[in-house]
């Protein structure tokens, strides 16, 4: 019961934040040089079309009312029309979404496996050379710009050793996996660097905690101890970190898609920015915010499932 109340509270909180994001974007829209109507029309703007759009969107009305209209349009899924593509923004985004989703899933799996195995190895052998080596990795890894890693990987695997496609998304499952491998590895480096430190710390704290000592005093050892008493407890603080990491993961995806010429959301965003397609940029921004919120909620659910003390403070 306490858990469902906790989730309900979190859901409400997320909706409020989403509202805040929409307000932020609305304000940004208003602040566009030349006014929102010109921004939305972009290069096709002529004084007559601007005036028409002004009337249509009710841009002569007071701001709070405009915001309300804006919200209403949002809930109907109307993100405006893309200037470049001359189609509704939602359509454009929908077309590019699958690529990014596939990339995201790939990264999640790769970085998940890497993080858990490296962190567990480092924690269990703490103080030994293996641990020092694993701890040193993030020192270097965190500073590495993802696009540079991507470019270097491109160089090594597509040019020098010619094993993987040089860019773009190949059709089919196998093709897709091959062309997404390098981008996924690139992003996993950054994500793992952050998460390994946290999970290792969490594991060490749990390993040295009283209840693990008590469990060992009962004769528990090895895998049973790890899986039953260590990992679940250690995962809890890392879960909260994961939702923060997701936001930077999305940012990384934006860049990496450019490096590897993948037709995903990130590519859309960069193109839109370059060509001053304001509706497109705003639409993608809103989408990324929503995605981060969804992931937050999922993490909250996982947290509630793991920890029965949730909601009691």
């Amino acid at each position, binding site marked *: 019961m306490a858990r469902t109340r906790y989730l309900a509270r979190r859901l409400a909180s997320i909706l409020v934040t989403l509202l805040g994001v929409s307000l932020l974007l609305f304000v940004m829209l208003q602040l566009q040089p030349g006014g929102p109507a010109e921004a939305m029309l972009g290069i096709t703007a002529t004084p007559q079309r601007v005036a028409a759009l002004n009337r249509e969107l009710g841009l002569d009305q007071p701001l709070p009312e405009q915001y309300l209209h804006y919200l209403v349009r949002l809930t109907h899924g109307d993100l405006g029309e893309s200037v470049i593509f001359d189609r509704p923004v939602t359509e454009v985004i929908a077309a590019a979404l699958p690529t990014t989703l596939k990339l995201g899933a790939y990264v999640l799996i790769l970085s998940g496996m890497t993080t858990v195995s490296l962190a567990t190895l480092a924690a269990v052998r703490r103080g030994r050379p293996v641990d020092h080596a694993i701890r040193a990795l993030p020192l270097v890894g965190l500073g590495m710009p993802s696009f540079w890693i991507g470019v270097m990987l491109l160089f090594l695997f597509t040019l020098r050793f010619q094993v993987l496609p040089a860019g773009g998304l190949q059709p089919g499952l196998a093709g897709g996996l091959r062309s997404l491998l390098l981008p996924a590895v690139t992003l996993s480096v950054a994500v793992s660097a952050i998460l390994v430190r946290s999970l290792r710390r969490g594991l060490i704290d749990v390993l040295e905690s009283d209840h693990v000592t008590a469990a060992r005093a*009962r004769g528990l050892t090895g895998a049973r101890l790890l899986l039953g008493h260590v990992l679940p407890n250690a995962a809890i603080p890392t879960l909260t970190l994961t939702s923060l990491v997701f936001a930077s993961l999305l940012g990384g995806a934006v860049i990496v898609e450019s490096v590897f010429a993948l037709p995903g959301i990130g590519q859309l965003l960069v193109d839109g920015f370059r060509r001053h397609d304001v509706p497109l940029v705003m639409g993608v921004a809103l989408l990324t915010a929503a995605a981060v919120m969804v992931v937050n909620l999922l993490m909250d659910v996982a947290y509630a499932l793991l920890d029965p003390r949730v909601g*009691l403070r």
Partner: protein
Amino acid sequence: MTAPALRVRGLTVTLDTAQGSLRAADRVAFDLPAGQAVGLVGESGSGKTTVLRALLGLPPRGSTVAGSVRLGGRELLGLPDRELASLRGTQVAMIFQDPATTLNPIRRVGSQIGEGPRVRLGWSRARARDHTIGLLRLMEVADPERVVRSYPHQLSGGIRQRVMIATALACRPAVLLCDEPTSALDVTTQEQILALLRTAAGLTGSALVLVSHDLAVVGRLCSSVLVMYAGRIVERGPVDEVFADPRHPYTRALLRSRPAATGERTRPVPVPGEPPDRFRPPSGCRFRTRCVLAEKRCASLPYHLTPVAPRLTAARLDATAPLRAAACIHATAPLLRAIGDTPHPGSIGDTPHPGSIGDTPHPGSIGDTPHPGTTGDTPHAEAVRRTDAGGRVSRLAGAGTPVLEVRGLGMEFPGTPTGRPFARRPRLRAVDGVDLHLDRAEILGLVGESGCGKSTMARCIVGLHQPTDGQVLVDGRPMPRHRTASERRRLQLVFQDPAAALNPARRIGGMLAELLRVHGLATRREVRPRCVELLRSVGLDASFLGAYPHALSGGQQQRVSLARALALEPAAIIADEIVSALDVSVQASVLNLLVDLRERLDVAILFISHDLAVVRQICDRVAVMHRGRIVEVARVDAAFSRPRHPHTRRLLAAIPTLPPARRTPA
């Protein structure tokens, strides 16, 4: 004669740390016959917990263990961990001090109890579950089916500890190690748990190694005792004999520094000095720097336990009785003179002051007045003459307006959510209509179990919480909701945790000086001498001015906190469990300091504690608190000898005491 359940010889644990290497345990040796109980007594740093963990095969990280530990004839030291793990739980198990942290918070309790048998004995889930429920019934847990499905945080402290015991006994180990099993619990719960431990261990036939700093607890459960100091066993033998006739000065000092809950109301005698530096202990006998009987040769004495002949003939004839021994040159005869024979510890050569040891109280000497209604709380107390056990009459207390008065104090908090949707959170009255007064130069004790509201009330009085109802009056004038700096000065609070109460980033001298300057209590030239004076008044010398808090021991930190409180020249000081976190020997010295301060400076003290024996020792009156209400207020001796409220009686009955034959030695 069967082999002992546990046979330890020359157990030495050496810890290598950044600051050097230290011997946490030094050549510890003892036998534990099957089914019996041995107590391991000592203060923090004595090495008792280290010994326990070494017996379990889980020594602290970075330590080396030497010696021999035979469990049922089988040598433990040197075994690979996999084999040790198979012995844990089945042959040797441990009960930890704080069940709040030693149970996995995210797993149900039942699965944790049943885990041992399932993994080590290969039982099925059903069989383990039945066994678990049976164990919980044995532990007198009501509704075991519900408890089995619960998580640790949903259970009370007493039930959690029973769960912990059940977990340890699940595989019927031959040896049960107990690390301070009751110190984290309330007095009444302690009592029940100790009884349970005894019956349960008896049923499973487990032998017990009980580690505690509380001699009474050891006295209740164990047949023999080992006294440890600085990693070494300094005395051992049957518990009755050792407590009645200690042969090592440290044992004797420990016994004397305990405030007695019954019998003569003597001042506890502190052990002089501080616990030894673990990295550079004194040469020879490690206790010699604090020992009144020390001689020059003690500095070069090798560690050796001298056998002591048993006093009682019965013991002499009983071949299975544990051998008595003590590591002291004076061990062969009863200790003639020890710390506490003089009112000023350490001044060897003084004649013992009449009345300081074991005198019977003069009838009517301890504050008894013939006025009717003295057991109640009369506002504006008549002058009280206090006469301590030595027959000395001390200064008058309580003439005139009370220094601190509390009227109808109430404090409400929103309670925990019930979990039902739309239900209003019940409001919790932590403090419920309290009336109290504290007179000048009086020490008023406030006792109650944890959760009764005493700390909340203290914080309300001092102004850290805004009370929901009632008033706080100082010198007859009520305190406003938002107090000015000079108003806040009038009441000072000393906290329980000595380290947390001092700013770690500031030197002691700087901290005191800041207070004096801000309140204009001293001119620039007076500041430093006043700081030195303050430190002296709490028994610390001027060298502490430049020190940082973390360099001080717990007892010294509490003295600094008292100095800080005194610096502001308050009307009253509220001491919230200030000795609970300290070792017994250090407690005594801080308590004596409080009494001294009262006598020299006339300061009034509200002394909050859960330890009735301590309250009895130094307080004039005592108020008993239960569930936010004061249920009884009386003069201390009246409250203790003729308690009126059932809750007071319950509290008194639950104090573990040394039975009459084992009282403070003459």
